């Protein structure tokens, strides 16, 4: 329980303007008791055993009594998540790596699918069947824009950009690019 370093009653004027009605939390906190002033002392529910790796916020001393066991951290994204959880929720070092890990995880998901012998049906997963039915023009425009950007990028890389790269990366070119 938290310690009171100063005895409030010893402070001149303590509590003379206290007003129990000054409470913007009503009625969201209908049974206000201020019990949390006693700290983390409530009788806890039975602790769920951790049968998978569970990362927990360092802003608490323990795992909560129950927790989800979906998708434990794995692979490169898991390594990034473990690092992120070394920082408190107050730190960008916590949240930004988690967003990065989410993106890495997407690539891992595709690799996992292929390793299991199936190529993800991106059209279906993106719900394009619904777009095709109800928003065909929008879908066609979106795909056309994507193709134009992707095509432009390929052209740029293979023409002008390619030349620049060739100069800089002479030795690696043969190994990594097919002409």
């Amino acid at each position, binding site marked *: 329980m938290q310690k009171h370093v100063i005895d409030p009653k010893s402070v001149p004027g303590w509590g003379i303007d206290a007003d129990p009605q000054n409470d913007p939390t009503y009625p*969201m906190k209908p*049974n206000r008791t201020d019990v949390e002033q006693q700290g983390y002392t409530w*009788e806890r529910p039975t602790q769920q055993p951790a049968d998978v790796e569970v990362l927990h916020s360092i802003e608490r001393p323990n795992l909560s*009594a129950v927790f989800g066991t979906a998708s434990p*951290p794995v692979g490169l994204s898991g390594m990034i998540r473990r690092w992120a959880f070394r920082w408190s929720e107050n730190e960008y070092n916590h949240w930004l790596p988690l967003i990065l890990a989410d993106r890495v995880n997407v690539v891992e998901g595709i690799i996992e699918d292929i390793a299991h012998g199936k190529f993800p049906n991106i059209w*279906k997963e993106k719900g394009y069947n619904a777009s095709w039915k109800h928003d065909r023009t929008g879908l066609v425009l979106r795909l056309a824009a994507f193709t134009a950007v992707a095509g432009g990028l390929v052209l740029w890389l293979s023409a002008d950009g390619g030349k620049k790269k060739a100069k800089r990366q002479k030795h690696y070119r043969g190994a990594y690019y097919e002409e």
Partner: protein
Amino acid sequence: MLAMDYRGPKRVRAVQKPMPEIKHPEDAIVKVTRSCICGSDLHLYNGNVPDTRVGTTFGHEFIGEVVEVGSEVTKLKVGDMVLVPFNIACGRCSFCQQGLFGNCHESNPMATAVGGIFGYSHTAGGFHGGQAEYVRVPYANFGPTVIPEGMDPDDAVLLTDVVPTGYQAAEMAGIQPGDTVVVFGAGPVGIMAARCAWLFGAGRVIVLDHVDYRLEFVKHYAPAEVYNFKTDMQDPVLFLKKQTDWLGADCVIDAVGAEAAGDVLQTITGRKLLVQAGSATAVHWAINSVKKGGIVSIVGVYGPTDNLVPIGNVLNKGLTLRANQASVKRLLPRLIEHVQNGVIRPKELITHRIPLEEVADGYRLFSDKLDNCIKPVLVMDSAR
């Protein structure tokens, strides 16, 4: 069992997954009969919530039948039909004891700022959600509520989130009789907030969105004065000032959240570059269009990092900001009464019934607001 499976931003599918198991003596396993897709799921779907892991199942608005209970479950039995609040709450921690069931401290180890929520990323506890044939429901003595005799399942499923959230949005707005209430967003939550504003005695209810069919719906359903912020005005804040004798609204509700449209800078930084925790357009407009000394009620969801909001105006105008995840369990008794008496008619919001197999199309329809979609519900094979 068949379950929704997240693969990456805007990529989901339905696949076979292992059956959920009892992991804690107070767990129950529920066979899901109906499960909705929510505006909150769109934040996950768009990849905007940190620690959303590939392979997880979303879904926090569901009802179903209890098929298995843990050794310490005494208040539910196999065969009960239950509606399950979206927040996971122990009922015993200091926060639950005081009615803050959306802020439980014993349901999410991953973040202290967020209570546990079904199928809502690891930032909300890493639970698989209810967009599946079966789901693990912790604290079964406390959370799930047996569906009252005679209640339509479509009404019941909306009592898990949409109705309590809309109601709490209006409650937190501190509406006094005669107050002018502005609601940003005419999605399911905004529609319900506009309806509930009247229950607290509002004198005038105004809803802004940019999707005409939704405005048309809320205009009759709430009822409300409705405006399209893209076509009816240039600057929504100035427009609302003119509408309210130049003083602003007494209460403003943000029922939009991180996916907000309407401001290029907010959209690029919040939704494309992710340098802020979602686009804060609605909360920005709310702060600037409320009266001095007024109240801004925020139920729109934002991520855990920072947002660009005019906090100086909150100070200079002397505003009160009230916000939370809805405390579903606290509100259920009153709201069940309202539904049974016909004061609130939730099921009218449901526009689409989609088989779980076609979950990807459901997300796309709802996200892109196709085919006049307001609220899609996934219907499981066994319940069809």
